[in-house]
């Protein structure tokens, strides 16, 4: 088996185990750590796809910046354990309607996954690395395509983030007496 194939299965397994760990933990700090592990495995997959820039950005933005903020909040709240939702009848997740809705969503997810796996085995692989066709350093190519072909999407995302920031400031502001 090629090195890439082994690497793919190892990293994919790590990512899945870590993701299960995120929702399977009672302690939120361990959930955060599992999520960081999952992002790390994902970055490894990007490296296998020959795009180190995406991998490093994944680490800097998600595993580095965003998860530190998550950890910060969890530590400040200092909740050692999540509430035991299954014993709490008044919890919104325990209402019968919520459970049925969740079950429907789960069925959809399974169907989609099955569809994806089925088609992945029958279809030809699509060439994904059109951006890094130049090879050596894809950073310039990525920058060029962001600021030319995808400039609208890029600017729209920036505005979305700005709106979210302003919203957070407004929500956090104290009401004037």
């Amino acid at each position, binding site marked *: 088996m090629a090195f890439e194939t082994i690497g793919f299965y190892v990293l994919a397994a790590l990512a899945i185990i870590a993701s299960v760990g995120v929702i399977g933990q009672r302690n939120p*700090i361990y959930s955060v*750590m599992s999520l*960081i592990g999952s992002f790390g495995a994902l970055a490894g997959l990007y490296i296998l796809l020959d795009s*180190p*820039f995406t991998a*490093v*950005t994944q*680490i*800097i933005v998600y*595993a*580095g*910046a965003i998860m*530190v*903020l998550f*950890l*910060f909040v969890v*530590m*400040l709240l*200092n909740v050692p354990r999540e509430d035991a939702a299954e014993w709490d009848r008044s919890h919104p997740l325990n209402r019968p309607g919520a459970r049925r809705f969740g079950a429907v969503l789960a069925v959809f997810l399974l169907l989609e996954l099955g569809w994806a796996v089925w088609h992945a085995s029958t279809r030809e692989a699509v060439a994904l690395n059109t951006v890094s066709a130049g090879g*050596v*350093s894809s*950073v310039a190519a990525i920058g060029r395509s962001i600021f030319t072909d995808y400039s609208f999407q890029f600017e729209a995302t920036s505005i979305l983030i700005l709106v979210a920031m302003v919203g957070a400031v407004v929500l956090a502001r104290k009401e004037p007496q």
Partner: protein
Amino acid sequence: MDPVLLVQIALVVVVFHALLLSAAGMVWAERKVAARLQQRFGPTLTGPAGLLQPFADVFKLFFKEELKPKAADSVLFYLAPIISATTAFLAFCVVPFGPPTTLFGLLDRPVMLTVADVNVAVLVIFAVASMGVYGIVLAGWSSNNKYSLLGGLRASAQMISYELSYGTALAAVLLLGNSMSLVDLVNAQSGYWFGFIPKWFVFLQPVGFFIFMTAGIAETNRAPFDFPEAEQELVAGYHTEYSSMSFALFFLAEYVNMVTVSAVATNLYLGGWHGPLLPPWLGILWWFAKLSVLLFFYLWLRWTLPRYRYDTLMQFGWKFLLPLSILNLLATAAGVLYFGL
């Protein structure tokens, strides 16, 4: 076996041990510089000029009892120093420290004096540095001690704030060198202006160099920005509850991080192994000379300046350093665009 591959493997081993030794050397230098600045002698009894003092320190730590608070989270408590030390060593992987060499003709093709020549090296250093925060934050939280927790929170706030200026200062250098590989960036600084001024980026980026060093000192939690472990307020901050070798790992990480920041500054701003007078194959001497000057600067600063106040530290980072680094980036971009620097 391919001799080049053997040399690469040897480089990994050499760099790892050189970093360990450099941490020991820095402990000795710190004690000596501190003593001299305070009109003392520092260590004199252990070996010639106290040179064996760091080894005595390590042996002492090695034989100390490993203590863990009862209420501490045992997994994360032991994981935190490991994360700190690992990320510290990992960052140095992509730092080149000398010109390509064939070992005086022994090899058929030149070998780069670095563990890994990555084409996004600058970003890798940045990414690893951002992972280093976890060691400190988790140490602070898992100790279950209010001083540790405060130290950990301070550390994360400080490192997030200063990473911005750090990265923005770096971006200006990337514009000048038109690459993200540290080897390319160093080679962009070879040659001279007017025949005698070396083409080091520090002459084009004096503000950037200032920002980089300031943010670098804050990133490594050294005085005058050593809030995470401010002893007058927080006992010892995030490593209050640590003893023996887990404490030593934090200590090791701090010194290795200092070496890495100084090495990156040497490569990005001071022309790496390029310099006048010496022949090119001795460039590694230039590299070590520049690195030593920067490391001495670190120690000098620590024993000269008192600690900031915490709110002034935050204000300095967000209201002065960040706007300044953005202006610097804009000016550099304009310079590259209109004057083709």
